[in-house]
């Protein structure tokens, strides 16, 4: 049983962005949505999550939207955030088994002193609840160097290994070192 399927889905605000979208997401799968700037990658995510109404077609979730966790694009002014990465996860009530993905040496790291990849790790973990079956990530590798991207990719690989039912939808125009299926928006 797939988690999600779309049939002839058309997305956009006033007019359609591109052709009809037909995609499926199965359990344990990573789906990468690629496309040039302005092709509607983020709009597609927002449409799938009911934040933006669809123009045409259908979006069929076989699971509750409570089981879908979403990490939007990050744009932050971090200079005043004096939390440790672990304290941030505590604010979001992240379960202990998910917090365990954060290495010990990173737990006490202040947000302002953390690298881009370390911050992204914390933000990804902050989204995950006990019910999460699908994790949706919007441009998680933006502004990250190679080392930071590997940090995030390793986390994703580990999570997928530990939970065979977890699926990911990742919007990224970058090539990922992950075992994923690609869907290209025109």
């Amino acid at each position, binding site marked *: 049983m797939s988690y999600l399927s779309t049939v002839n889905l058309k997305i956009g605000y006033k007019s359609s962005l591109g052709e009809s979208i037909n995609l499926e997401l199965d359990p344990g799968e990573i789906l990468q949505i690629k496309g040039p700037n302005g092709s509607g990658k983020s709009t597609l995510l927002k449409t799938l999550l009911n934040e933006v109404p669809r123009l045409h077609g259908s979006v069929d979730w076989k699971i509750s939207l409570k089981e879908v966790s979403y990490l*939007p*694009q*990050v*744009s*932050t*002014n*971090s*200079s*005043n*955030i*004096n*939390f*440790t990465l672990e*304290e*941030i996860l505590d*604010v*979001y*009530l992240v379960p202990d088994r998910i917090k365990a993905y954060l290495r010990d040496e990173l737990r*006490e790291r*202040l947000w*302002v*002193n953390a690298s881009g990849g370390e911050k992204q790790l914390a*933000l990804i973990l902050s989204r995950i609840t006990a019910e999460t079956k699908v994790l949706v990530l919007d441009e998680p590798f933006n502004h990250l160097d190679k080392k930071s991207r590997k940090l995030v990719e390793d986390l994703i690989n580990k999570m997928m290994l530990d939970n065979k039912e977890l699926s990911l939808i990742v919007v990224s125009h970058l090539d990922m070192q992950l075992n994923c299926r690609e869907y290209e928006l025109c």
Partner: protein
Amino acid sequence: MLGMILFYKLSFITTTLSSASLSIIGKHFIWRNKFIELFALCQFAIIGNLVGHLIVPMIHLPIIPLLSSITFFILGKFLFDLFKVNHKERSTRMICIYLILSSLQYLMISFFPNLEPHLNSGLFGSTVTTTRIENLILIAVFIVINFALFYLNRMLTRNSLEINFFQRRKRNVKDEYLLLIPIVVSVFGLGLVYTLSFLSLGAVILGSSFKNQKKNHTVLILINIAASLGGLLLSLFFEKLSTTPTQVVLLATLCILVKFFNEKLLK
């Protein structure tokens, strides 16, 4: 000495509660990058105070200036949100709004010179000149807000972090109206300089000086209370010292000293 402290006992209580609350509230506005917006909004509160004092001779209710302050403040916040004035390029816009509203205040004084003492107290206020009723209102408001901040801490902090991390996304900012009430009451009773200083100085100077947020939080509250109480005490015993400037300078000094010694200890 004890007699003077007992005479001003309500002021000591107000000072303790207000400085503790303001240190926590200020952090949320700094995390949300909305401090400059607060600066502009406080000008609405001062105008509301002046308008209230114009109405008092006609309606004879001493609470009118406070209610008018709150009304103008909330109206200002509502207009900012409605016209999205506080979105992009907010720093420049807020400074322009501050300049216009500040000029409006002085224009009101030129037409109604009897309002001048109220403008001065709106800017510099003083815990020692606050009346008994004003002190009791301030104490009640800050007790309630301290409880609210304690119980709603996680929700407020989460929302503040979300606003900071994902600045391009629309967020529900209705919780800011809860945080704004003690600010406008503080501006009314304790003055603009005291309020904005105790909202921000500690968070800005000691921003990332500690190992974690919990320690930062605790130290900041203690410093705020110490500066507020210390400044009040010093101004009572040394006639030449004005209360609010003494409190603010003491706060800045304590923050800088703690930062300096903390960095030395960590090295």
